């Protein structure tokens, strides 16, 4: 099938919707588990004190998910959600490359580089 802008947009739309559905399901599952485990007084968000270090790294979250930690499962869902627009840009790179639009394949790759920089290195 011929690659057109319309086709890229349709694929992107399906992908975004799938991504957000998966992410919301994971967040909901983690949330139900969290509420089942924590019945006491709620956490205090009045003052900013950051989050524990195990929730701030991929390996920490992966370890938490493996041991059934509810907060880690919710964080996994949030990361899946963040990954959805990133995957969208990735799909545009492929689509523009298939259309032989070098300029826009390059522009999409540049946006991807900014996103990866911010997700992986920026501090």
């Amino acid at each position: 099938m011929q690659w057109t802008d319309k086709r890229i947009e349709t694929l992107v739309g399906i992908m975004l919707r799938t991504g957000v559905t998966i992410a919301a399901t994971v967040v909901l599952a983690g949330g139900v588990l969290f509420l089942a485990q924590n019945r006491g007084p709620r956490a205090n968000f009045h003052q900013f004190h950051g989050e524990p270090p195990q929730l701030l790294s991929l390996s920490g979250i992966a370890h938490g998910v493996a041991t059934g930690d509810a907060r880690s499962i919710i964080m996994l869902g949030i990361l899946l959600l963040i990954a959805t627009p990133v995957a969208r840009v990735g799909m545009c790179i492929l689509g523009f490359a298939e259309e032989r639009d070098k300029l826009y394949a390059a522009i999409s790759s540049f946006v991807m580089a900014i996103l990866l920089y911010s997700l992986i290195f920026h501090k």
Partner: protein
Amino acid sequence: MNELWFALILCVSSMVAGLLGALSGLGGGVVIVPLLTIAFHVDIHYAIGASLVSVIATSSGAAAAYVREGFSNIRVGMFLEIATTLGALFGAWLTTRIPTHAIGIVFGVVLLYSAWASLKQRHGAVTENPDPLALRLKLKGTLPEDDEIRTYVAQRIPAGFGLMTLAGALSGLLGIGSGAVKVLAMDQAMRLPFKVSTTTSNFMIGVTAAASAGLYWRSGYMAPSLVMPVMLGVLIGSLMGSRLLVKAEVRTLKRVFSLVIVALGVEMIVSSLTRK
């Protein structure tokens, strides 16, 4: 208040915010931060973390519907995402460095602007001489209008690009989608048709927000037990809103919601000024 009640009340409030945001076209994100800080006394850093996640969810969730309409322009969106993502990196960096009351004041001003922009009459697209830079960058497209296919070409690229950098910076600084500034850049500065501007803006919001999400995450702004009810609530509310949008009379609602936003904006500015 225990965890379950807190989560339920947050989820329902966020649902209402998402519903009103979708119906009024202002987006649910813009009221989540004032809702959390004013009504629930949540620290603004946690509030913008939860808001940013909700913004990505609604942008991605609504995208499929927008694609079906066929007005969004992926080239215009992708080109301008260079500006919004770079702006967002700067904005998110700024958030970790400026004092809390300064964030509150900027937020209040942006709320007032959003309310004003939503009520203002919009420009009809004016056809000027095609911008050579726009043609080189293929920033053009077609859309169906009154049984004929209309062609449009973007104007004033540098002004649009500059405004988009600002939109990105505000998104990263405040955890919002800054759809109002994005539409301003495309509709007013670049003279793109209004429907192209709003649908392309929705597409761009998710990518822009993803650019600041990494820094928010590693700075500990995303508290799972707070994000969970807010994100799910806003998502459900905004999906309901976009379904209802076809039937509902939005004019009055838009005015009422704008007044609410003005009140929230004033409250944020005043409380930020008095608290410091």
